């Protein structure tokens, strides 16, 4: 059995709104998985079910062999860390150091071990120099990294990032890619919701496409972006460079490396 398994999972809110119809998937440790799809497709609901914030109204979610139904949310969250879409939903301490340490303190981790773990998580998230700042002294987009560090410091086996690329500049996007790489290299799984298709094609091999509250496709990113019908159904588009390649008849080109190799090695103007 895989570390994380969703078996015919659905979720209906108490008010009757069905936010997720029926999804099944499994994730092994060490994988990087991108979840893509338009707003309202069910992406956030699905990941909240993975970390026990929501319990399925049908089907079951298994984490490390135990159903999330049979554990309290804190136990599931220790194995599956979730970083909210809006960092302000979770930040409440008055220094970045205290904010990142909060979960460890609450878990009664020995004081002398906390410092090192906080410093490590802060370093990975590019916050090494701002540990003593107030979280709200950082711009909105950087507060996201405080919340990523707070999740990472708890040493979960699965890390879920909900739209971490939203509103990020180039440096931050590169930092995120580095975090995903480091965390998966440690044998952990990273599941990321993103609207940035270039980011997704660059840093993920596996993609889950969602539309209308269910999974349309779970497979290699390269296959997803070759499938016109799927992209149309999910209201998604290829990264821009791949769009150009497509228009020029190179259907398998996804990245700049592919495109560079596919085009003639001479001026394109002389070829007209």
């Amino acid at each position, binding site marked *: 059995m895989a570390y994380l398994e969703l078996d015919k999972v659905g979720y209906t809110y108490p008010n009757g709104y069905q936010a997720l119809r029926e999804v099944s998937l499994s994730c092994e440790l060490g994988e990087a998985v991108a979840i893509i799809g338009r*707003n309202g497709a069910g992406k956030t609901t699905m990941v909240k079910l993975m970390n026990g914030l929501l319990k399925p109204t049908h089907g079951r979610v298994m984490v490390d062999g135990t159903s999330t139904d049979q554990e309290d949310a804190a136990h599931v969250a220790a194995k599956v860390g979730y970083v909210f*879409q809006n960092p*302000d939903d979770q930040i409440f301490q008055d220094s970045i150091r205290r904010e990142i340490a909060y979960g460890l303190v609450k878990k009664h981790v020995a004081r002398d071990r906390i410092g090192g773990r906080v410093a490590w998580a802060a370093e990975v998230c590019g916050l090494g120099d701002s540990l003593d700042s107030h979280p709200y002294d950082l711009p909105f987009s950087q507060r996201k990294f405080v919340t990523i560090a707070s999740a990472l410091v708890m040493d979960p086996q699965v890390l879920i990032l909900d739209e971490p690329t939203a509103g990020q500049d180039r*440096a931050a996007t590169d930092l995120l890619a580095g975090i995903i790489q480091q965390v998966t290299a440690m044998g952990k799984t990273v599941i990321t919701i993103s609207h940035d298709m270039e980011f997704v094609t660059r840093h993920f091999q596996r993609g889950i496409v969602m539309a209308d509250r269910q999974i349309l496709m779970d497979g290699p990113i390269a296959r997803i972006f070759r499938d016109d019908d799927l992209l149309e159904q999910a209201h998604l588009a290829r990264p821009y*460079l791949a769009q*150009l390649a497509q228009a*020029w008849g190179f259907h398998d080109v996804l990245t700049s490396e592919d495109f560079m190799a596919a085009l003639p090695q*001479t001026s394109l103007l002389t070829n007209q």
Partner: protein
Amino acid sequence: MSVISLEHVGYRYPLGREDAVHDVSFQVEQGQVCALLGANGSGKTTICNLIRGFIPRFYRGEPTGQVQLAGRPVEQYDDAELTETVGYSFQNPFTQMSGVKDNVREEIAYALENLGVEREAMAARVDAMIDLLHLDDIADANPLELSGGQRQRVAIAAVLVTDPPIVVLDEPTSQLDPQSTEDVFNIIALLKRQGKTVILVEHKIDLVARYSDLVILMEGGRVAMSGPARRVLTDPQVLDHGGQLPEVTRFFLERNKKLGLNDPVPLSVEDAIKRYGRKGA
């Protein structure tokens, strides 16, 4: 006469250790879309606040230099005039909602109420915004229960409903999926056709390249590069100043360099097809 003019503008937040912006000068003409680019913390939002007069009316401190709207210094405008002149959508969509309205329709009407617009005219204008931003299915929802993407669209509606000649959009698409993002850029194009002047802070550089006339690249509170979008966004120096280049542009720059070519560098997919034809290969 420029619709927006900044001359040697500097400003430090009251508790700030350094200037948030320093010696910033640029002009925007009527009907132009001007993109403010640069890394997080480079001063883009501060410039938006100066143009809207939130600095120094809300954020205290003393700006230096001069900000003019339609040839008049912004400090000579009274609050109501500023509200009518500059529509402003905030960066963080989670704090944008007024918090005093029960549904999206009322949220959008809020500014019109404050301006004393008649009930019938108000309803018509709110309906037009609900249409424009595809908000029909959430028109009766509580603004505080919306997702980030939904709030962002409601926020834009609440700004455009007063029909201001200047529109400032601070990261209007950060929470939106690709389709809704395209929708917002189509609205920006529409505002431009209506002769409105748009200041846009946006990280989605591929769309910025397609839709803006003018770009100002900020770095550490100063203007690092500025000029027509085509000129600035095909210049690899943008990367040295913490900026980004469109995906297609970056590719052609790299390709020219690698192969020692001097092929034209397009700004977008459409531009590449225009320059090289339907089939480049």
